[in-house]
């Protein structure tokens, strides 16, 4: 250390250290306190509105009669279609990048591109979905258009998580398979993928939990806020929980705010359940290799 930084008083140096440590601890505490306040705020406003009726009724202009049935069903549709689209393509892309891709400039561009896509704001995906799926391909303001948009949004996350999982499979496993005469695809299908699957599923569930909380891209493609019926086909209009929450929060009346809080509680429970499932999968199947 340079001479000017020489501080002779040990006591002062220790005191500075103690103050700094206390400040750092305060920062951590801040995040925890905010989380507690947020949850308390939502529970205080929303808990009294939460009932079976609330879950099974359709939205209404009268707060006391409003429910989130169409939003819950819409979210389920959305999650199912998004997963059906993004899971196979995401895993396929990850397999290509980890097992097949030659080390060329094209592969490097592909990889950099995926990293950059992960940082594109979600509303830009909404603009893309609006132009391509809603208008160009003519899907309209449908569940399908929404699911494809959200699928593209979470694709980079699924690819990156799956790549990590595939990377973690030891090379010796592949070599053993090749050694007994398996082809490349047989090796991947029967030896690499089963070992990587828990990691892939964990990443997919976490990214899906991001998708069901997304609001902005679905507003862009025109998810309707007042839907009194659930979708019956992928081409039907829809609403989802976050859109319903946004709609109620944006209203000036306090009763609608409380409804929003109740819907937030439902959404948070779903998210927590998905996260718990992901953690369970990670711990349960973390194979001993």
């Amino acid at each position, binding site marked *: *250390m340079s001479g000017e930084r020489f501080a002779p008083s040990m006591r002062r*140096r*220790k005191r*500075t*250290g103690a103050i700094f*440590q206390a*400040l*750092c601890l305060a*920062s*951590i505490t*801040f*995040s925890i306190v*905010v989380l507690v306040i*947020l949850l308390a*705020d*939502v529970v205080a*406003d929303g808990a009294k509105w939460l009932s079976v009726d609330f879950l099974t009724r359709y939205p209404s202009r009268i707060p006391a009669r409003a429910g989130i049935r169409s939003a819950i069903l819409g979210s389920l549709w959305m999650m199912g279609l998004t997963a059906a689209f993004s899971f*196979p393509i*995401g895993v*396929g*892309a990850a*397999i*290509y990048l980890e097992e*097949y*891709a030659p080390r060329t400039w094209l592969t490097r*561009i*592909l990889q950099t*591109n*995926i*990293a950059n896509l992960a*940082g*594109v*704001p979600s*509303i*830009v*995906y*909404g*603009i*893309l979905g609006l*132009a*391509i799926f809603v*208008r160009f391909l003519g899907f309209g303001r449908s569940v399908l258009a929404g699911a494809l948009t959200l699928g*593209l949004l979470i694709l980079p996350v699924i*690819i990156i998580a799956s790549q990590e999982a595939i990377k973690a499979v030891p090379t010796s496993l592949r070599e053993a398979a*090749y050694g007994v*005469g398996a*082809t*490349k*695809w047989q090796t991947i299908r029967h030896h690499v993928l089963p070992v990587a699957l828990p990691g892939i599923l964990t990443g997919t569930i976490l990214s899906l939990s991001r998708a069901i*909380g997304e609001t*902005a891209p679905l507003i*862009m493609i025109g998810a309707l806020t007042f839907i009194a019926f659930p979708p019956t086909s992928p081409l039907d209009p829809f609403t989802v929980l976050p859109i319903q*929450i946004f709609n109620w*929060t944006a209203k000036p009346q306090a009763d609608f*705010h409380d409804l929003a*809080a109740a819907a*937030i509680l439902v959404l948070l429970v779903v*998210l*927590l359940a998905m*996260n718990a499932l992901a953690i369970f999968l990670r711990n349960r199947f973390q194979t001993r290799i």
Partner: protein
Amino acid sequence: MSPAAGPSPAGLAAELGHRARRRWGERAIAGLLFLCGAISILTTAGIVIVLFTESAGFFRKVPIGEFLTGTRWSPLFADQHFGILPLLNGTFLIAVGAMAIALPVGLTSAIYLSEYATPKLRGAVKPILEVLAGIPTVVYGYFALTFITPVIRTVFPSTGIFNAASGAIVVGIMIIPMVASLSEDALNAVPQSLREAAYGLGATKFEVSTRVVVPAALSGIVASFILAISRAVGETMAVTLAAGATPKMTLNFLESVQTMTAYIVQISLGETPHGTLEYQTIFAVGLVLFFITLGMNILSQRITRRFREVYE
């Protein structure tokens, strides 16, 4: 790979035929998997093409110079003005306010987790940060409107329902986990030997942390800051709900402003017909938003790659 001693010529021929078919299948699978990867390129191409072609119509009617330097934004009024600066002003007001919270809190949290916390405490705190990071942005918007805004209005009674401060605070809270977790990764990557060398010279824990570990991890920390700013710029729902819909040139956090993202939401919620000039504005604004965030993400990657201290 040499085949094992074949049985009969007929069996060998069958086996070879089987293999040729298998190779065909192998090729098809490799091609299919490549297509999966190519979708990500198509996505980027799609975003760029859509933004450029749709805003081309806009820029035929509004000169780019006027768009980029105008200080009034009023596409929905009779007296139309298309200067994007008020929206940029709103966006950066939110981003600056958010960073003023997220940078110090996130970095000191990261230092505590990496340098001070026991493994047990770290194991308890990290899931809490993950939960904070996983809460949907519309929930943060609700929190801003029903909790943060009333608190601000008690302190500054003249504040309106919609104000930049509430949006900035909530976006700041939202990106703390991101700054904390990425910075902690950078701090953890600093080799233990550096810390031990500093202790050997008689440095205290505070001096080791702030004068050795943080400088050594600086590139990763700066990269996390830039990513966080980019996230704050692209954040939509919380600012739409909390900061309002008033595009204006102001540095006053207690006033209502409008960000680029909030404007795009406002138009898509409204009844603006497709193909009109007013409608095309969302693509022009989206184009600016896309390039700002893309530029920041690339910058962040560059910094990580270029300035990383490599220790062996």
